[in-house]
């Protein structure tokens, strides 16, 4: 499933620079707010669902080469975090819904590990 479809289906807001999301694929996913668990469990090129929105989220996403990060419950990262995401080519997406709902919808779309 590509990021374009995910953004449309889940009505996500793009926080980082516009790019061609139809060419970026999410191969599996992971949900947790504990960074060490994400480091251990998130699949390469996966999509990560979290409530965390601080700078270190970008470091984790960059190290694991994640396709995207969905920040839930409308938690808005600060400008510096968004700028860092752009520098590191990390795709940040925002939803007003909670993690449970977002994961459920991703599962419905066929993103399963």
């Amino acid at each position, binding site marked *: 499933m590509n990021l374009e479809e995910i953004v449309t289906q889940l009505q996500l807001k793009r926080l980082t620079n516009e790019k061609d999301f139809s060419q970026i694929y999410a191969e599996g996913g992971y949900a947790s707010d*504990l*960074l*060490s*668990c994400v480091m*251990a469990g998130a699949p390469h090129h996966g999509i990560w669902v979290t409530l*965390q929105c*601080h700078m270190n989220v970008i470091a984790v996403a960059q*190290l694991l080469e994640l396709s995207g990060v969905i920040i839930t419950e409308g938690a808005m990262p600060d400008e510096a975090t968004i700028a860092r995401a752009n520098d*590191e080519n990390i795709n940040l997406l925002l939803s007003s819904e909670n993690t449970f709902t977002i994961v459920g919808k991703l599962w419905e779309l066929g993103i399963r590990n």
Partner: protein
Amino acid sequence: MDDKTSVKAIISDAAAEDITRIEELAYELKIREVMTTQAHTIRLDTKMADVLELMRTQKISGAPVMDQDRVVGIVSTENLIQCLVDQDLESEVNKYMSSNILFARASDPVVEALKLFVNTKVGRLPVIEDNKLVGIITKGDITRGVLKALQRDYKTEELRRYRASHLFEDIESDRTSVILRYIIKPRDFVHGGTASSNIKKALQRLGGTPQITRKVSIAIYEAEMNLVIHTTNGGTIRVEIEPHIISIDAFDDGPGIEDVELALKPGWSTATDEIREMGFGAGMGLVNISRCVDSMKLESSPEIGTRLKMKINLDDGDQGINSDATKK
């Protein structure tokens, strides 16, 4: 001979190389790798009106028609147009579908499907494995698959060109290594992860495989965040890269770990609530490290501080840095 020279005049060497690569890919790529797996199927008793609706809403131009779990036909836009001409949308699909079906095997190379596309008029082929339908393949799937594979090739080539692994080939010594040092500041969450990120990039340039790079990144990230979160004055990460082994040392000057054994227990953490709220302090850092490295040693005392030593072997399989040269 004449033919060959004239072709050469038109096609540059680079272009010729590309064409050969695509031909190769047609043999290398398996149908399974490029086919669409979650293909829509249509039951034999479906009305053409419903077929029209499915094609319209799902934006597909054809689908296999199933009798139980057996493919008995293929219905395409062409069949649908005929049906519309006849103004016969109430008919069942078996009246309009093509029942003369060709199949592709999932384990066959893509070139087999290409041959069928070229030699027949069909636009899609049901893919079978052990007599069961496992997907659908179209010319579009093949184009996408080949493009993806070419992109992968390109990335590998880029990486090879820019990697600095020739260091190990060019410089003669009894023991060559590259040492990287990073100073980690305490409580600096803004730059936390920068050292791991830089080491990851360095390893990529040195030609580390994705698996090794990932392992090292995770281990160093955890060690780095431990220094950020727990130390009084920060600490240092020292990474020594040799052709067969990576040795990582993370050390600080305090306050030291009270109970080293307890610190290694999954879920144990001394992080404050404030730090936990940021998603740290899961008590999994050292556990993650031990999963990623081949050996680790944790020493700590309140007077001297903490020293975590980790080693990752690069000789398992074909995973070493600059493995071509070191194998000689």
